[in-house]
């Protein structure tokens, strides 16, 4: 069901963005995906649903925890929160990602070759 031109994110990217977002504040699923979409200026074309498998994996790894509550719009929502383990994991992932990005950037840098 992919639209043409859409690129898959690399494995772990979505998880990393979820963790980073949750680090700022606990959110429920819908708010989370809206936030990611908005912040990325819609550059990343994410299927809204693809968030959920990622959230389930994070829950299982105990990187986030979830709680049912009532939202400000008086809706029953499941709010996700970063755990201490999740915060540590995010740090490691981000630094790994930065190294990777730096490597890719250098290879792609014009002028050489």
């Amino acid at each position, binding site marked *: *069901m992919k639209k043409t031109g859409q690129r898959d994110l690399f494995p772990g990217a979505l998880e990393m963005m979820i963790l980073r977002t949750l680090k700022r504040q606990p959110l*429920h*699923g*819908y708010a989370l*995906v809206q936030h990611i979409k908005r912040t990325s200026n819609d550059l990343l074309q994410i*299927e*809204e*649903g*693809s968030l*959920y*498998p990622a*959230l*389930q*994996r994070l*829950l*299982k790894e105990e990187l986030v925890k*979830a709680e*049912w509550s009532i939202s400000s*719009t008086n*809706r*029953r*929502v*499941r709010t996700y929160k970063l755990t201490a383990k999740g915060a540590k994991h995010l740090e490691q992932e981000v630094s790994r990602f930065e190294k990777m990005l730096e490597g890719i950037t250098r290879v792609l840098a014009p002028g050489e070759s």
Partner: protein
Amino acid sequence: MMWLKQLFSRRRLYNDLSEEIQQHLEEKIEELVAAGMSRKEASAAARREFGNLALIEQDSRSAWRWPSIENFLMDVRFGARMLRKNPGFAAVAVVTLALGIAANTTIFSMVSGWMLRPPRIKDHTGVVMILSTDPAKGGGWDQNPVSVPDFVVWREQSHSFEDMVASQLSDFALTGEGEPERFDGMRVSASYFDVLGVSPALGRTFLPGEDQPGRDQVVILSDGLWQRRFGSNPNVVGAAVRLNGDSYKVVGVMPKGYRLGYYGPQLWTPLVFPPQSLLPAAREDRSLDVMARLKSGVSVETAKAEMAALAQRSEQTYPGTSKGWGATAWPIQKYLADEFKVAMRLLMGTVIFVLLIACANIASLQLTRAAARQREFAVRVALGASRFRLVRQLLVESLLVALAGGGLGLLLASWGVALLRGALNWSDYVTSMSGEVTLDNTVLAFTLGASVCAAILFGLAPALHGTALDLHSTLKEGGRAGSQSRARNRTHSVLVTAEITLALALLIGAGLDIQDLLQKLYNGFGIDPNQVLTANISLSSTRYKDPSKQADFFKNVIQNLDALPGVISAGATTTLVPSATEPERAVTFSIAGQPVLLRKERERTDYYAISSHYLRTQQIPLLRGRSLLPADNVQAPPVALVNQAFVQRYFPNEEPLGKRVRLDTSASDRADWSEIVGVVGDVKDLAREQKDMSQVYEPSLQRPSTGMTLVVRTRSDPAAFAPLLRRAVWDVDEDQPITRVQTMNQVIADYRTGGVTVCTMMATFAGLALGLAVVGVFGVMAYTVAQRTHEMGIRMALGAKRSDVLRMVLRKGIFLGAIGVGIGFALGASLMWLQQASEGIVMPFDQRAPVYLAAVFLISLTVLLATYIPARRATKVDPIVALRYE
């Protein structure tokens, strides 16, 4: 155990997920509607934005799956399907394993019941057995009872214990209503049951002070006796019963199922120490079983050290009686289990061999099956399965076979246990202990463990072999992996050799046991045991205090017996069977004219006080001189007979007739000497072939005794004569109990710890092992032949004769057989040697040689046969068919 929780709370997780997604969509829809879309449009847009709902939900759920467990369950389902597809293999493997498991479970039920189950007393870890030790005695058997003076001193001086109590088995005659009866009872210290922490079902236990003389006429009944003799009447407490001629008051009844170890006394009375038992000289009479309860916080080690110190003090104070003697403390359960250690080790070893052979058979089957499944594995590997996954698949299949085999084995074992309980009947003790042999939880756990171990044993090698694939050649049409099958053949060969080895070792073991038994049963004992009935009589020492009354009693009974029709001869003896296994039953003696020694330095001999017709009744031959006569009574000069071994040992070059001997049958030396008037044949020991047992006979008229065994030789079935024998005794004294009415053949067969039962078990297991090994050898040879059909076709097409092919196949069987026999022989012989050495007797090899030869011959013959039949089939190969076979 997070994953376990997740496994079970999955439904909730999924529900949460569904609801969450639903909420997400609704929020989106509402937002879109608020932005001006119609509800229908908004709904479609929301779904579009969300993506594939079903797929996403499935993906989300799969995050919660536990892949290894689910794969495992998949393996199980697939394995079960594979086994169903090949029911022949499954059935053979399951039945083979079931036989091995059943044998192990049955035997282990004895180990569990007798050695592992804690004694039914309060906090058994706090109770220790106090034992006298004599390291000089050696033989590894260093658990002696304690003497009365030692007990009294140790009880007073020790600090490790809350209390220390003594007990002693003792004979009781119960008279009064019903038939008089004699059985084992136990005399115990007053606080005996307090130390054990056991309460009675009815009434009370003994009170402090009831073990003082004059207050000790109280008795506690066992549940069995209460049921049998008193019809479970609850009013029995307070009633009076006659024991050994005295009146005792019943104060309590013990609960059903109360027993402590090997002993099953029918009643308990207080243990009173008569004044002479407290004299220093009584230290030599070690006959008390002593137990103690540790003070809380005191370890067994501390108690041991204290007992050793106390014993050292006794040794220093009384060097005459206690030199070299120590003392120690054993946890009660360890002490009780020790009784069965040797026998259980032997039996468990045997059945484990059987299980190993069964495993080897199944492994060999699996190997063959894995070879046939090579293509299946190759396809799976080609599709991306890892080798680990394949090995796991095969192990799971093995596990299924093992569990099915274990289940069936358990079923067989429940039948085996029933059989075993029926066979445990050679003495009252053993019969009462047979109830402890059950399939309890420990046994079930053992069976499960054994099944799983078996699965790994018979599953791992074939799984590793079967999955070491050369993809290319296996997948190629008609491809044969040459090096593969060579490795497999090697494994087959090792398995076959191992089976032969184990089976031969078992055959040797069982063979030696059976030889032992046959020797005992049929090689003659110097008596003719057929058509002979025996019965024990023990006269009450209060009613028959006068020795002449004792002599008269037996004289009258024998006269009554002699007068009965169908009786050839009747007699009585104080000793029925030679005492080699119980040296304490031998008697010290002196020979007139030789230097006089201290009692404990004197020689020992078996001693028999007999009625004049005893020798004739047992058919013990008179070799020289004269036999005993009715005239050899108190008025006549004392006489004695000795056996041939006695003459060879003490009068090697002298004339024994006319020599005089003095037997120490009472506490002080006799005043008179007995003249040897005759020499009789040797009566052999029932337990072991010990050639040089000296035996002395004296007339019971001159040496009366309260305890004798009546012996009657009858014309017809001796067992049917029992009621007549009882009548003959009760005509003389109707209150006289009669015990152990048995034919002489029963006495012999049952003499040593149920030799027949143990032999039957060993023979059964050895037969099972042989059968399994034969099936294994046959299977492997048949497989080898089938595998080489192509090759044989070529050989025969090229001119090889049928005899060449036959020889080729036979050679392999004989080669494997020879290796197996060689190792098995060495293993069996050394195991037997170890076993005998641990019992302290090593039989000379020449006596054992026939058994070794027979075992080797039997196994060689069966291996040859199991090889010959497939080999014959190989010669029937039609070259054309064989070559077309591909």
